[in-house]
């Protein structure tokens, strides 16, 4: 089934979320797509607890609070969120609309695309070891998609954060799990940590101090992981290696959409924030123009101007009458409707 909307926003970070609001004021409906499983982008993923001091009127606000407030502010416009998926492909239809297809095969038709993708989408950080590409997705898994293939297998999980500990606790029920981390202190939630330590005490999980030094393909569906703790080298033969070193950002498929780029940033004009392809806009950290500052507040400004131009694509026959939220009865009704 193809869903339909006026605008598809790529990226649910602060600027993408504020774009819902600015577009909503002009009666433009939005769907928002993000690769993370929650809205907020870098604010929610990288620094949910860190205070931000340069949001106008907010003396200090954490990344998570800012996200929560932007979600609340966008709510009256009933945005539809498609999370845990990435836009894979866009296609210009004869009608002039865009067909947007995501990594889980969701199709959405829209009149405009607004790219608010920050530094790209968050993907797991891969091991910086050469010649292991053929083992990735085979013996080296950066995410667990299908738990059943791991049953009864010998696993080496690496990392000290929530992903590493949660999977250690979960997979130790059905697999032979060794958890390796560079120190015996963990960043994961205290609850997961105590659970893991309990499992270790009961010999359900082996814990190992160390780091990955190298990987060899044993050509029998197993791999040898060479580990190092200070100067001590140890080898592990395992079926699967699951390294959890957090996430990094990558531009991803956007690079192939024929937009004018400048070092992985999308070139836009400063009147409409439109890209080199009409009806595709780029706002926030992902765009570039003379004098660009990568600030959340700049992204907010860009969202407001972008919305003015989007209106022309969404309502080609209508005149856009500029109204303030302080004076427009219609806007006030909409904003207080929930």
């Amino acid at each position, binding site marked *: 089934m193809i869903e339909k909307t006026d605008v598809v926003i790529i990226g649910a970070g602060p600027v993408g979320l504020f774009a819902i609001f600015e577009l909503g004021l002009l009666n433009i409906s939005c769907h928002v797509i993000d690769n993370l499983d929650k809205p907020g982008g*870098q604010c929610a993923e*990288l*620094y949910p607890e*860190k205070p931000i001091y340069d949001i106008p009127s907010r003396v200090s606000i954490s990344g998570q609070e800012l996200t929560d407030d932007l979600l609340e502010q966008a709510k009256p416009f009933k945005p539809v969120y498609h999370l845990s998926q990435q836009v894979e492909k866009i296609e210009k239809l004869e009608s002039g609309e865009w067909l947007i297809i995501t990594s889980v095969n969701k199709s959405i038709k829209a009149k405009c695309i607004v790219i608010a993708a920050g*530094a790209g989408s968050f993907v797991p*950080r891969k*091991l*910086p070891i050469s010649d292991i590409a053929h083992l990735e997705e085979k013996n080296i898994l950066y995410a667990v998609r299908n738990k059943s293939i791991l049953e009864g297998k010998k696993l080496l999980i690496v*990392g*000290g*954060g929530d992903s590493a500990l949660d999977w250690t606790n979960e997979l130790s029920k059905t697999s032979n799990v060794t958890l390796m*981390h*560079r*120190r015996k*202190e963990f*960043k994961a939630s205290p609850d997961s940590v105590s659970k893991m330590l309990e499992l270790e005490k009961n010999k359900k999980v082996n814990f190992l101090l160390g*780091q*990955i*030094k190298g990987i060899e393909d044993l050509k029998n569906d197993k791999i040898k992981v060479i580990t190092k703790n200070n100067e001590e080298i140890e080898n592990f033969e395992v079926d699967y290696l699951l390294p959890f*070193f*957090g996430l*990094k*950002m990558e531009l991803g498929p956007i690079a192939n959409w024929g937009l004018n780029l400048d070092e992985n940033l999308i070139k836009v004009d400063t009147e409409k924030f439109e890209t080199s392809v009409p009806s595709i806009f780029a706002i926030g950290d992902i765009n570039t123009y003379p004098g660009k500052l*990568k600030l959340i507040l700049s992204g907010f400004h860009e969202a407001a101007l972008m919305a003015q131009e989007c209106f022309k694509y969404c309502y080609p026959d209508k005149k856009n009458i500029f109204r303030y939220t302080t004076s427009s009865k219609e806007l006030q009704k909409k904003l207080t409707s929930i």
Partner: protein
Amino acid sequence: MKISVTDRDGNKQILEADNNSTLMEIIRDEGIDIEAACGGCCACATCHVYIDNKWMHKLDPIDDDEESMLDQAFDVKKNSRLSCQIQMNDELDGLELELAPE
């Protein structure tokens, strides 16, 4: 003031440094490939560097935040630091460091 930076290909560069910047900023602003994804707020580990051992004692000790962020870095050594957490100062004139793998 100067610092010496060895990149991942082993090339050594001498950079002009000033007291207003962190080591990450000095490296980034010179156009050397250092990701520094979070912009310098100790929320990622993509500005991971190895400080030459003879300079280690001149640095402020690592704090808990930085230590736990290093959990996301690869091949962490005793001289591993996040370059965004080190403010340049007169004492560090001549400091040598190497970019960690990513």
